[in-house]
């Protein structure tokens, strides 16, 4: 019984983390029509930046939450730079853009190795969330529950942004029909930069939030990117609800798969992705077909 409870909570936590990672990926994919292969790298970079901030860069020891926000902003800026300097040059050529993101991911991985070394770095749980909640025989670390809360808050915030703000309307228009969006005067290329920055920032934020659970190590970008991909394909590109549901689903498959079917753990993770792409390419909630 404890086993099921523990794993269920862990699945939802992991799902929450995946949502923070994939929401941005989904928006970028939906709007710019490219799978951003640097998304895992942004996650990793955010986590690494976070560890530096937490250990006292520039003489200031940042608190956990402040560090997370600062990282998010830093990675957002990097994302915006990458979009403007590299991706915009190749506007209209999706294939080339995907390849550029692939090349950049190689570069970021090595830069992180240069900057932070090959040894995994653990991130301390923020003080205050160090405790547990007991539920019968089961014990749930507070921090993991907090991650679920953060994911929900961000989901609501993103939903509000998309549904209620002008920016959100422009994004939705761009996702639905970029040609028409341009015709009605939406500056689509500027939108691209904003969304790419937003996506990157979210990924960086997720990186540090995930730190106390996963720690940071070289190769975490290669571990997280395929997960984001599966979530977004499953849920539907450009769909926030799809990302949310997809993340929780993948959280469950990942955790229970490792525990119950270790030999097929990755098989059952990627099989849904193949099935969706072949049978229902728009995913569970996606609007447009890829």
């Amino acid at each position, binding site marked *: 019984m*404890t*086993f099921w409870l*523990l*794993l269920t909570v*862990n699945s939802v936590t*992991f799902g929450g983390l995946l949502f923070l990672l994939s929401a941005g990926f989904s928006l970028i994919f939906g709007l710019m029509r490219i799978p951003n292969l640097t998304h895992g790298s942004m996650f990793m970079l955010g986590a690494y930046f976070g560890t530096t901030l937490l250990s006292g860069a520039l003489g200031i020891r940042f608190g956990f939450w402040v560090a997370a926000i600062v990282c998010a902003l830093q990675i957002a800026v990097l994302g915006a730079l990458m979009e403007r300097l590299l991706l915009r040059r190749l506007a209209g050529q999706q294939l080339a853009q995907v390849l550029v993101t692939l090349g950049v991911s190689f570069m970021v991985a090595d830069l992180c*190795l240069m900057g932070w*070394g*090959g*040894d*995994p770095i*653990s991130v301390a749980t923020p003080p205050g969330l160090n405790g*547990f909640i*007991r539920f019968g025989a*089961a*014990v749930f*670390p507070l921090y993991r529950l907090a991650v679920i809360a953060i994911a929900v808050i961000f989901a609501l915030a993103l939903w509000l942004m998309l549904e209620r703000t002008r920016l959100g309307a422009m994004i939705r228009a761009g996702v639905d029909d970029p040609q028409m969006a341009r015709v009605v005067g939406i500056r689509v290329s500027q939108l691209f930069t904003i969304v790419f920055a937003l996506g990157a920032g979210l990924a960086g934020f997720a990186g540090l939030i995930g730190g106390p*659970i*996963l*720690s940071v*190590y*070289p*190769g*975490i970008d290669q*571990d997280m990117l395929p997960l984001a991909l599966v979530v977004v394909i499953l849920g539907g590109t450009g769909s926030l609800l799809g990302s949310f549901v997809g993340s929780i689903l993948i959280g469950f498959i990942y*955790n*229970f798969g*490792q*525990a119950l079917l*270790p030999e097929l753990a990755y098989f059952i993770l990627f099989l849904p992705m193949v099935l969706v792409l072949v049978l229902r390419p728009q995913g569970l909630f996606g609007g447009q077909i890829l």
Partner: protein
Amino acid sequence: MPAKPKTRKVNRRTVLAGSVAGAAVALTRFPAPAVAQAEPFRLGLLTVKTGPLAQGGIQMEQGVLTYLKETNYMIGGRKVDLFSADTGGNPAGTKTKAQELVERDKVDVILGPLAAFELYAINDYIREQKMPTLSLAAADDLTQRKPNPYLLRASATSSQAMHPMAHYTATELKLKRIFCIVEDFAFGYEQMGGFQASLQKEGGCVVNKLWPPLVTPDYTPYVAQISDCDGVCQGFAGSNPLRFMKAYANAGLQYPVVTGETGGDDALLKSFGEEAIGLVSCIPYTLDLEVDANQRFINGMLKNFDTIPGQYAGLLYVNCQVVDAALKATGGDARDKDKFMTALRAVSLTDTPRGPLKFDHFGNVVGTFYIRRIGTEGAKYGLKLWNKTIKTYENVSQFWIWPEQEYLAHPVYSRDYPPLTKC
């Protein structure tokens, strides 16, 4: 029709053909004449600086450098050139780097690799190339049923520390039903196999064995399966013990935990938290061994790298001592590989950071193993936690208390051997 004028066209095919030929000429090297004594001694190091095992690999290099700095880069009366290679902590990378060290850098001896699965991958290659290798990596069978004459192991086989650990667990901690969890690679299988065999000999049994992959970001799905036992035996390596112990504590589990040589390594003491208090480990090198060589070594590590060493550094320091002793015995000559191997295997030292050691006829060490428990008592060097030695097992060989022939008659420890029994 007029004859076609002969035009010399440069097109990509000719360019390519020409550059291939040019490259061939450029890459030709002429072998340098061999001059033995005046030539520096080329020491190769296969270590891991990337990934979960990097924690150990970085220390391996520091251990070697500490020795070299102490002897002013002299071994066996010759100046030393160190060639350090990062295998990435995986067999494929180890193969590539081993080839580089042997073929490109032309080393005389290889120290390392770190992990058992890495050693298995290059075993055939080392034997073919007759390259004396002082491995840190365990890989039991290479000094047992498939002995490699060019291998020398001053550290331990994977199971060598686990045999006494199981003995201690059953006889002194009085824990009989143990749940085992370790990474899914050769070092893991062999550790747990040894633990189980020795535990069963003392009347205990293993409840279950779990094998999370080497790179597991979150141990919770595995920790959630631990239940119904007297104690837990973990065998994690590199920096994985840190995250495992945290995940274990986070799940509220309170069974006593025992471990082998890597799971409670002294170098991790600065990163462990309260969750590690009470962890009992068995290891060939311990910080609190008060002998001269150990003091010299620790001081060297603190001075050169401001790092508190663990067994990865300690055992590489010992490896350097062994090479030094052997090279002195051959008068500085390492060109005859077989003669050099004989000298290496004949080495017997008393003043090393791990205490006295000698080698059995397979080239594996026979030495002392220390049982320690993590607590706050006796902490030095600014640490909050300390591994305090509570028992010493001397003259431990790779076969533990079994006669050699009986031990070799059963298959090498693996995922399925010894098989799980009703417990």
